[in-house]
């Protein structure tokens, strides 16, 4: 399948981590930065390589390719570093690599204080993220997620903006809560399945033969939904997200909101859906109502009221996670498929938005949208990027997000037309806040506040160093937007193969 003499998955995990370790051990700054380009680029190359070769040969019945297993000493517990990708993991793996590269490039050019440590933490995140989506073993899937999570706290704390201390603490406590509860769920699954393995493939085979009892499924699914719900900011457990993202430095916010947050949804799709179908179905209605009323409508309305650009983006991200939950609640093939698409798309677009928000901040010295206005006259390219990113995030066709939302809505109707109607109403809300923010920041006449700032620092348009990472993300959004099949084919294959019996509802 892959002609490389090494395991591309392991390399893409290990390369960033190795550099992070080297930096920790005292690599000089010049070399750190130089090598960081490579460490962020390698996962992308690997991801593209893997993507390219994914369908080269027919997949085995479990749907995974590039399987390799490394024993870390826990094979007795049924745990091993089992790497591989299926059609669902592949898009997210590529996403992680791309956003990682963009975040890395943006971080390198940002010239942050203590850049070495910043890069080191970012690299740890990157390595963890690659690991999350490359792990077939549920334990390592969780493990890598946590690995990627820790740097967020420190990055928010050191390089964060307003309220960073409180935000960092709240973020960490919330995310730990979510992680702990989902860990309990996973342990419950591990013990109760009787398979005594965390290996997803083996577990799936085992549970196909010996399905779990209904109550058990409900309990485990409940734990996972709560835990992962916190991680993915399911209403009303979401309050960490806007605060945290509002305070986080751009690259951390990009990686976290863009990729890391997808862990929970990915877990639900990859683990909960195939292993606990009845359990998820049991919770589907409460979940859907919570998501549609809470995430989509309430948070959507709240987003309209935001004055701080970054918080606004944070809230909009929370809102879009509502759609993802709706897709999972809807089930079948279309719903989860749409969620995978939406995850990738949202990851790219929200990362792009955070990147641009920071770029705006550098020009206006504020995140308060009231104090901007008319910036487009000075920075047309930045404005174009921002408008494109905003439109992508509110689901304009031509961008990847649209496909995800569309598939989710289609799936949702079968689940509940009423919920669908409410969810689609959210599209209007997102148009309102999206366009409003673009207008407040860029259009209309220049405000006095902006004039004052620009008098001191004449704003320059997006430089190429900033533009390049943004272009990567935007290009990916457009690529998927115009050619969704590139992503949906593997996803569809994986989902269809997984549920041959389940009606394609």
């Amino acid at each position, binding site marked *: 399948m892959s002609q490389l003499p090494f395991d591309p998955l392991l390399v893409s995990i290990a390369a960033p981590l190795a550099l992070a370790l080297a930096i920790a051990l005292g690599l000089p700054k010049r070399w750190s930065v130089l090598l960081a380009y490579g460490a962020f680029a390698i996962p992308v190359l690997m991801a593209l390589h893997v993507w390219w070769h994914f369908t080269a040969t027919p997949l085995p019945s479990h749907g995974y390719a590039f399987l390799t297993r490394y024993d870390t000493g826990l094979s007795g517990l049924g745990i091993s570093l089992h790497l591989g990708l299926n059609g669902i993991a592949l898009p997210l793996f590529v996403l992680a690599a791309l956003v990682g590269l963009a975040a890395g490039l943006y971080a390198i050019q940002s010239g942050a204080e203590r850049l070495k440590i910043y890069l080191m933490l970012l690299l740890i995140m990157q390595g963890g993220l690659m690991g999350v989506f490359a792990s077939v073993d549920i334990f390592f899937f969780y493990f890598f997620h946590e690995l990627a999570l820790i740097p967020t706290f420190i990055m928010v704390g050191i390089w964060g903006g307003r309220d960073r201390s409180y935000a960092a603490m709240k973020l960490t406590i919330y995310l730990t809560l979510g992680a702990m509860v989902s860990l309990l769920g996973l342990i419950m699954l591990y013990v109760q399945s009787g398979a005594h393995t965390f290996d997803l493939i083996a577990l799936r085979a085992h549970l196909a033969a010996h399905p779990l009892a209904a109550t058990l499924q409900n309990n485990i699914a409940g734990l996972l939904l709560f835990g992962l719900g916190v991680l993915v900011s399911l209403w009303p457990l979401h*309050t960490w997200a806007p605060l945290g993202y509002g305070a986080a430095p751009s690259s951390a916010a990009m990686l976290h909101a863009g990729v890391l947050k997808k862990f929970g949804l990915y877990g639900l799709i990859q683990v909960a859906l195939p292993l606990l179908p009845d359990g998820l179905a049991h919770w589907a209605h409460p979940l859907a109502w919570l998501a549609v009323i809470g995430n989509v409508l309430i948070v959507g309305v709240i987003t309209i009221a935001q004055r701080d650009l970054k918080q606004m983006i944070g809230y909009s991200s929370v809102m879009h996670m509502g759609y993802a939950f709706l897709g999972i609640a809807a089930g079948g093939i279309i719903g989860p498929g749409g969620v995978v698409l939406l995850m990738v798309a949202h990851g790219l677009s929200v990362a792009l938005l955070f990147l641009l928000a920071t770029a705006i901040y550098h020009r206006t010295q504020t995140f308060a949208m009231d104090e901007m206005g008319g910036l487009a*006259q000075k920075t047309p390219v930045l404005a174009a990027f921002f408008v494109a990113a905003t439109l992508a995030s509110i689901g304009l066709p031509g961008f990847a997000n649209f496909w995800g939302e569309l598939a989710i809505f289609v799936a949702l109707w079968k689940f509940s037309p009423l919920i669908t109607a409410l969810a689609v109403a959210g599209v209007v809300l997102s148009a309102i806040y999206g366009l409003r923010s673009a*207008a407040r920041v860029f*259009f209309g006449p220049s405000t006095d506040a902006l004039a004052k700032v620009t008098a001191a620092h004449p704003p320059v348009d997006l430089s190429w160093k900033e533009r390049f990472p943004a272009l990567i993300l935007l290009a990916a959004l457009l690529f998927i937007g115009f050619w*969704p099949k590139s992503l949906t084919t593997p996803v569809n294959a994986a*989902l269809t193969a997984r549920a041959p019996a389940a009606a394609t509802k």
Partner: protein
Amino acid sequence: MTMLSHAIFVLILPLVSAAIIALFLRRAGGIAAAVSTLTATAIAGISVLLALRNERFTESFEWMRFGDFAISLGFKFDDLAALMLVIVGIVGLCVHVFSLGYMHDDAAKARYFGGLSIFMFSMLGIVFADNLFMMFIFWELVGFSSYVLINHWHEKQSASDASKKAFIANRVGDFGFLLGIVMCYWLNGTVNLTELAAKGEAHTLVFSTLIPLFLFCGAVGKSAQLPLHVWLPDAMEGPTPVSALIHAATMVAAGIYMLCRINVLMVPDALTVIMWTGTATALYAALCAITQSDIKKVLAYSTLSQLGYMVAAFGLGSLSDTHQHDGVPHTIIIAAGVGAAMFHLTTHAFFKALMFLGSGSVIHGCHHEQDIFKMGGLRMRMPLTFWTFTIGVAAIIGFPYLAGFFSKDAILYLAYAKNTPVFALLALTAVLTSLYMVRLWKLTFLGEPRSDHASHAHEGGLTLTLPLVLLAVLSLVAGYTAFYPKVFSGVFDLIPVAHDTDHTIIFITSLGVMIVGASTGYTFWKSTPTDTLADKLPGLFSALSALRASFDGAYDYYVAKIQQRFALFVNFFEQIFLAGLIVRGLAGFVGLFGLGARALHVGNLNAYVYWFLLGIVMLWLFATGVVTL
């Protein structure tokens, strides 16, 4: 090259043009304009070629798939699409050429022409779409292009607001549109237009009143019907050629086109709703147009009114004739709303584009003066514009044997045959149309100049006048069905044609309303710097103004007072109640326990011994079986 590859080429070409402009020609406005205009020329040429070749085809390519759910990128090229394609191609070309002159000195010319190309791409997508999902995709893209173009002069607060409003109002419509599509998908298992039509033939279609109504929401948004019409007058903040292209001839007509596309899904209840919506819009917009002083706003309300006509025409449904054939009743549709609506759409596209471009020419000539009370006397200074504009006015008010005359008659006849109240209201609208159009025409072109700009007005260059002439010619001839090649028979055969007494009644009515309206308008309004109506009948004037302002007022009130306050309230609730009271409260609660637990370490050994006692007692209770877990 096959026809299909031509179609694909036509669709892709403007996208490529837009991409090239966005990527490489951002600073080279002249080249960008050339690229875009050449593209438009090619599109117009190939469109006409495609239409005339009388080859109709359907073809689709899978775009994405989840399980059984697939969305395809498809082409359904039938007579309806061919007609629409030609309209879009020709009007598009005219507007491009006109823009060359009109936007010559604009700093962001590249963005403008890029936007035009994107618009062409989106609009062609709607035209070709063979399924509703694809139509929805391009539907939204059209909205986006409109957003970009209205917002062209983004440093103006009004332009920024108008573009936002346009997009959001369209989104509201799309909300229903999407629901309709999804509902249709689950009910009928497909949203492919050909398959739906086949199902309709085979009588296996599952009907629901909700589906057409939901889908109609999309048309309400895009074609600016009540109550989502608010965005269209504001959209006049965009450059005038944009108004001509998007907000008069093509995009707003997409709603009508879409309705015609989904005709098979219609049920009588839905048609009634559509009909009344159209009628109401037609009348309301005509009333609003009377008091406008901005030349483009008058045209905008006129557009609204005409769109209402088309929607009403569609809603009136079909005229059928039942034959006894071998003892079995056979129903033959001899005429349909589809035909009337599309006919009016076609003629309207030409004469309304003509008038918008004419107004653009006027505005250009008057150095961006748009107030008709500051114009006057342009007949002498801009003769070509005057004559072409006059043709446009004559066409819209239904001057006999001009384009509007025929299409309006077709609609009136349909209304007459189907529903008398609607007929009456539409006739009244026609009176009003003549009234305000003549008012506009007189105030702009006749009398004496009322401002410096007007007195120094001059005709624009060739790029400005050539499109006017072309469109004027079309406005003259487009009403004759014979003018159209046979290739559009799929549409034009359905145009209701009155015969005998009906014909006479309609003819007289039509002529009557035109004369009444035009003469009143001509005699009543004087070429003065103030509105004659406001001077003489201030009560009526303010009533009409209030009628117009009521929707905008309600809209503004909703945005500022309800939506914003509600958002702030919910935000406040979240900050105080959820993030504050519950989350911080919980943290504080735990922290309180923490302080309590901390306070237990009093430092005194005697106190600590009690803890041991406590422990022993606890364990003792387990041992004695008093407590079990």
